[in-house]
């Protein structure tokens, strides 16, 4: 074992779901070697199984897939699938991790993913990725877009199904010899400096709840199964059918909280995401088939996240989804029709019996016994709910130093929280292994490039049979002949698999031998193999951008029945690519210098944490706070229930900042201007000691939010009416004797919230009320406490405090937004509220009326948003680049956010989000220069009319208008920043003057393709 001075610059990330993938990418970008260890044959986790994601209805696979591909391409990430961690030994900085790798029986390096083996395999078994709704072969790919994109042989099977019978048909069918039935399991020792556990949690198996009939009634399915049914690549190709008889269901019921908030199955927590995914599933189902009538049976609608309330409102009001507040205790089946009968009591206490064609059980997440054993084996401390124990002051750190965790392994949660925790864990690894950063990372190889300027195009074309995938349909030899006849083509050849390792060598040799200066690979989609071929060009001394690909598989052999037609189309497409190739030019790799320093705006818990995390990772940071003192909202919070000692937390953070020489704190200061772009920002800061200028590479916004000051229910006119913060202040100091027997406190939730102008949930107020209610009961158990709520948002493990409160006799009364409580002021504060179960108005005589008014964004944010050119949402909170997968990034590269300015949240949540922002910022700061996107847009200054249309449209704020003197005349034109442009092409399409061209897609290149079209058949043409 080595000491502190010898930390290992490698990290084991255990679990290849979205959390693991995010940690791996962040760490790899920071300069660490990453082993991404996944139990199943492919990375992607649960997110890969989802059809769409809320609240944007993005296709889940479409947004996840690029991240998976990035993982597989990253030179610093080694993906280990079909592998499990057996043990973790050692200490922070130097661990020995033993990984048990199951035999896949397929050589991933050789497998070309051609599917020939699957075609011949005689064994069919249930497809676990499709939740058994369809079948797969014994040799199979985990899912169509699987990374690694390779097959695996199932030799285990299960009790009912026989697996591989060693018939060796696949061995015969495989033309590249990728199949090896003699593979054996192996244990691999990894030496790493840190470990991140993101092993997730399992969807609940509802068959244990016999009364719901899952497993007995074919038309009762789980929400996971429904996700697969919705998916276009799912078992029914996206058609909504009920598994019992493949009929199209019309009436579908969703039942919430199956395996959540349920003591009977020992799961007394909320799974946090089910309310929202159910709303999404119902909305998407209706989009698939407007005839479908969804009904959702629920206890509370926990729409506590950003823009969730608006989504649920749309589901109800625009899509006509029916919501019924009722707990379903039993499902019956009509034996003949296999329809399902639900009996329920509605809010008015009336009994109903309703027939549905299909019932979807909204299952939550939990830890299986097997998982709990693994956790024990790895030394992970477990909480009351079987999840990993987590300390709210640093939620992603395990008790054992050097081991971190993220995602639903910690607590059931949705994608953005998982992604933030994954980045937060990466930030802490970055700080722990700071000295070892870059020691084990693979530097990008540098090749010497041949100058081709002035050369006539000499084009080489490599055509791929892809086994029989292309060659079985397209007459490749005739396409080769035709290709050879095209001008400038000096070499054309065919290969069984162009992507195989030996073909790469042939490409390199052919480039050298024939003096090729353009290369075309006519094979499959560029999505997976383009980087491989580009690398071959680079090795041969050609600029990699002199490569073009033609897709003659997906666009020809796979989509056309008629071989002759497919062959003709392949010729046409290759002729077009040849035409484009003649116009290709080398694209130089340009870089942007990075000032490796950060500025953090806002000195609350988010800002302080971000600054400390950045400094811990080795980056100089300026922390700017508008007020005289650091701390933000921490100064107002007096006590918590989750075990955070707030005053101590604040003083700890302050003293750490004082001791951290890499952080400069400016209080009573305001950023007055920021100019520049990623890597090169210039800020001017007004401080009590005059103006300070600061040069830095990234900006993190952590400006927080405040309690909304209400104006209803007599607030401000009657002093018995107070806000949550005010009652907290009082209770923090109150002595037990100050609270009288029978003294009555009434809390009203959602005051001026979740409706009208502030139509969002503030996430923290339900717990705020419960926290204060518990304190009252602690001071005097015989005080009376009533909480009037709309939906109680005690998501996740907060649920336990709700239960505790009810146990102590705190009365929770639900009210509807259409029938709000009414208040009259007399000797007591009289609160009248409609009680739906009693069907009558109840009058409460309160001594104190406490209003939960939620949080509001500071209107001053607008100024900062304009300064940094980043967006706010309609509620005034900063709007991240992508609500699911980029929760702390802005579209503008180099600007990040964390904390309540992103949306209301708890202290623990702000802490990990702040660490996440620091991690994302570190991925940029870790390198002295950034490589710019090659295919960026370029402005022709002579053509540009300076109309600024492109500037308004650029999603990355990469374009500015500049005025300069050209030949004695002042000319205004657009200027594209190479560091910010992501090559999306929006400006190119929008420019009416045709003054913007995109490298690799220039007008002359595209027009040459169009003109070449139709050249192959007489009479064909434009």
């Amino acid at each position, binding site marked *: 074992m080595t000491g502190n001075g010898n930390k290992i610059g490698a990290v084991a990330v255990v679990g290849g779901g979205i959390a693991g993938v995010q940690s791996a990418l962040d760490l790899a970008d920071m300069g660490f070697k990453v082993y991404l260890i996944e139990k199943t044959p492919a990375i992607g986790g649960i997110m890969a199984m989802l059809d769409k994601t809320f609240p944007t209805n993005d296709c889940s696979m479409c947004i996840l897939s690029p991240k998976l591909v990035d993982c597989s391409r990253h030179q610093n990430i080694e993906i280990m699938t079909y592998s499990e961690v057996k043990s973790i030994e050692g200490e922070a900085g130097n661990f020995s991790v033993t990984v048990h790798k199951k035999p896949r029986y397929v050589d991933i390096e050789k497998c070309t993913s051609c599917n020939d083996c699957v075609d011949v395999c005689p064994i069919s078994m249930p497809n676990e990725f499709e939740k058994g709704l369809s079948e797969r072969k014994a040799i199979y790919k985990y899912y169509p877009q699987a990374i690694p994109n390779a097959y695996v042989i199932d030799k285990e099977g299960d009790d009912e199904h026989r697996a591989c019978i060693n018939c060796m048909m696949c061995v015969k069918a495989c033309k590249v010899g990728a199949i090896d039935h003699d593979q054996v399991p192996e244990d691999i020792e990894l030496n790493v400096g840190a470990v991140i556990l993101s092993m997730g949690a399992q969807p609940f198996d509802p068959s244990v709840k016999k009364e719901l009939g899952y497993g007995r009634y074919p038309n009762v399915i789980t929400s996971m199964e429904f996700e697969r049914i919705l998916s276009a690549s799912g078992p029914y190709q996206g058609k909504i059918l009920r598994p019992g008889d493949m009929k199209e269901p019309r009436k579908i019921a969703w039942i919430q909280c199956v395996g959540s908030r349920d003591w009977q199955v020992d799961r007394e927590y909320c799974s946090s995401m089910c309310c929202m995914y159910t709303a999404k599933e119902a909305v998407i189902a209706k*989009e698939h088939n407007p005839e479908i009538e969804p009904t959702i049976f629920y206890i509370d609608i926990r729409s506590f996240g950003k823009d969730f309330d608006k989504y649920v409102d749309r589901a109800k009001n625009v899509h006509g989804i029916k919501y019924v507040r009722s707990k379903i205790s039993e499902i019956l089946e009509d034996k003949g029709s296999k329809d399902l009968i639900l009996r329920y009591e509605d809010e008015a206490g009336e009994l109903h019996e309703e027939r549905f064609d299909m019932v979807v059980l909204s299952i939550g997440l939990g830890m299986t016994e097997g998982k709990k054993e693994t956790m024990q084996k790895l030394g992970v401390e477990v909480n009351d709910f079987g999840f990993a124990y987590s300390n709210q002051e640093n939620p992603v750190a395990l008790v054992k130093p050097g081991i971190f965790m993220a995602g639903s392994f910690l607590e059931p949660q949705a994608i953005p929280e998982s992604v933030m925790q994954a980045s937060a864990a990466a930030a802490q690894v970055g700080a722990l292994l700071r000295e070892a950063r870059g020691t084990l990372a693979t530097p990008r190889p540098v090749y010497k490039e041949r100058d081709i300027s002035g050369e006539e195009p000499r084009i080489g074309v490599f055509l791929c049979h892809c086994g029989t995938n292309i060659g079985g349909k397209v007459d490749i030899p005739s396409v080769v002949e035709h290709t050879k006849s095209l001008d400038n083509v000096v070499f054309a050849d065919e290969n069984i698999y162009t992507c195989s390792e030996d073909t790469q060598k042939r490409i390199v040799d052919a480039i050298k031998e024939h003096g090729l200066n353009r290369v075309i690979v006519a094979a499959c989609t560029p999505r997976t193999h383009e980087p491989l071929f580009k690398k071959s060009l680079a090795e041969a001394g050609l600029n990699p951008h002199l490569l073009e690909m033609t897709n003659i598989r997906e666009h020809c052999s796979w989509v056309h029945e008629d071989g002759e037609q497919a062959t003709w189309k392949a010729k046409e497409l290759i002729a077009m690519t040849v035409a484009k190739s003649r116009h290709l030019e080398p694209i130089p790799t340009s870089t942007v210098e990075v000032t490796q320093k950060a500025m953090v705006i806002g000195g609350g818990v988010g800002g302080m944490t971000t600054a400390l995390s950045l400094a811990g990772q080795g980056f100089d940071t300026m922390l700017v706070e508008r007020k005289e003192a650091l701390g933000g909202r921490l100064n107002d919070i007096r006590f918590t229930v989750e075990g955070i000692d707030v005053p101590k937390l604040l003083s700890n953070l302050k003293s750490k900042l004082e001791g951290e020489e890499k952080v400069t704190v400016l209080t009573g200061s305001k950023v007055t201007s920021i100019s520049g772009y990623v890597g090169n920002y210039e800020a001017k800061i007004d401080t009590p000691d005059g103006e300070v200028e600061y040069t830095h590479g990234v900006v993190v916004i952590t400006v927080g939010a405040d309690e909304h000051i209400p104006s209803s229910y007599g607030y401000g006119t009657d002093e018995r009416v107070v806000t949550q913060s005010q009652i907290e202040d009082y209770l923090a100091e109150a002595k037990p004797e100050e609270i009288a027997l029978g003294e009555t406190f009434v809390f009203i939730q959602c005051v001026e919230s979740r409706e009208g102008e502030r139509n969002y949930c503030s996430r923290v107020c339900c717990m705020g009320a419960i926290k204060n209610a518990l304190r009252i009961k602690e001071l005097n158990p015989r005080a009376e406490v009533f909480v009037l709520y709309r939906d109680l948002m005690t998501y996740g493990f907060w649920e336990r405090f709700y239960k505790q409160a009810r146990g102590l006799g705190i009365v929770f009364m639900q009210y509807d937004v259409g029938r709000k409580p009414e208040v009259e002021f007399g000797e007591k504060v009289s609160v009248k509220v409609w009680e739906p179960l009693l069907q009558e108005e109840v009058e409460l005589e309160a001594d104190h009326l406490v209003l939960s008014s939620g949080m509001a964004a500071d209107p001053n944010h607008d100024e900062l948003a304009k300064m940094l050119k980043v967006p706010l949402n309609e509620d005034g909170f900063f709007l991240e680049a992508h609500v699911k997968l980029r929760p702390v990034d802005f579209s503008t590269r180099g600007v990040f956010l964390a904390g309540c300015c992103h949306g209301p949240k708890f202290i623990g949540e702000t802490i990990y989000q702040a660490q996440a922002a620091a991690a994302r910022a570190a991925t940029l700061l870790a390198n002295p220069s950034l490589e710019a996107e090659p295919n960026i847009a370029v402005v022709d200054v*002579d*053509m*540009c*009319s*300076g*109309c*600024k*249309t492109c500037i*308004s*449209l650029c999603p990355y704020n990469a374009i500015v*208008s500049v005025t300069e003197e050209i030949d004695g*005349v*002042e*000319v*205004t034109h657009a200027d594209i920043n190479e560091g910010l442009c992501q090559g999306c092409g929006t400006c190119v399409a*929008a420019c*009416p*003057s*045709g*003054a913007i061209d995109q490298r690799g897609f220039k*007008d*002359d290149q595209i*027009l040459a393709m169009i*003109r070449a079209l*139709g*050249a192959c058949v*007489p*009479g*064909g*043409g*434009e």
Partner: protein
Amino acid sequence: MEGLILVKDGDIASGCNELFKTFLTSGKLEAILVSQETPNGKMAFPALISDPEKLRSNILSPILPVSEASEISRMTINKGSDKPVGVVIRPCQVRALTEIVKLNQANLENIVVISMDCPGTMDVNTFSNLPEGKVPTDIIMDHLLKGTDIDQYLRSSCRTCKDPVPMNADITIGLFGVDLGSGFLVQAHTESGERLLEGVKLEAYKGEREKAIAKVRGGKDAKREAFISSKKEIKGIEAIADFYDKCVNCHNCMNACPICYCKECIFHSSVFDSDANKYVHRAKNKGIMKMPDGALLFHITRMNHMILSCVECGLCEQACPSNIPLMDLLIPVAENAQRELDYYPGKDPDEKLPMVVFREDEYRSVGEK
């Protein structure tokens, strides 16, 4: 600020000219851009005048040979004026100016926009070839005073004018709802307009201007609607080709258009250049190919680029040497496209061009589901 300026013998044109002179002599304006008749009286062109003695404007002269907005763009595109300059332009040109300012092609710094109630303009040829004894200004005055129908003289886009009353001018010269026998109305809408009118003797105005404007607008709207509904739908590439049949590819329409602003039109660049073999190859496609080949693509591209900002000034049609009735197609297309995107070009200087506004919930019917 508003009021009447009295004139002798109902000579509105001279009255206005005198007013403009005072702007120059008082030093409030460094120069003024205003339409001025050529010495033979057969034409009028915008002229930038700094010497009050050279000022012989006639705002009633019913002609708009070139886009006034384009001339302001020419003057200010690279840099705004250091000293105040007045521009006297027609309502359609104020709308065009508003659009090209949004497109960053003109700079209104120190530009004072003076516009007028517009009775309409004549085609260049109509104007210069009026029968013996017919004086353009008299025809207009006759119409303003007695309501004579003068549609036979007007350009088609003036007959169906989208709005003959200016919006977004600093000063309006009011002719509608005014007793033109005694004088004309001036209204200042902005500070710079008021500064210009300071010290000018104004009489109280008591007419019913709003009512008069409503009547004029109502008449024009009715004609415009009738015009649009009388146009047959031109559908399909064959019908569009037929419409532009007479085009000689001179690109005059583009040059005359105040909205077309590209420094170099893409159709003048080498982007579409080809070689003989390719031409022959394309000819083989259908056995025949019309030359020059780009006319139709040019018109469709031009329409695509300018239609949302089209203010219907009709200068393209006036410039066409082949007399293609361009507005027959442009007005209905503009009307539909602008209504679809809820955009009225030239109306609100602060409203963004539809092109630069992205609304996520827009056109969901055609987007990704």
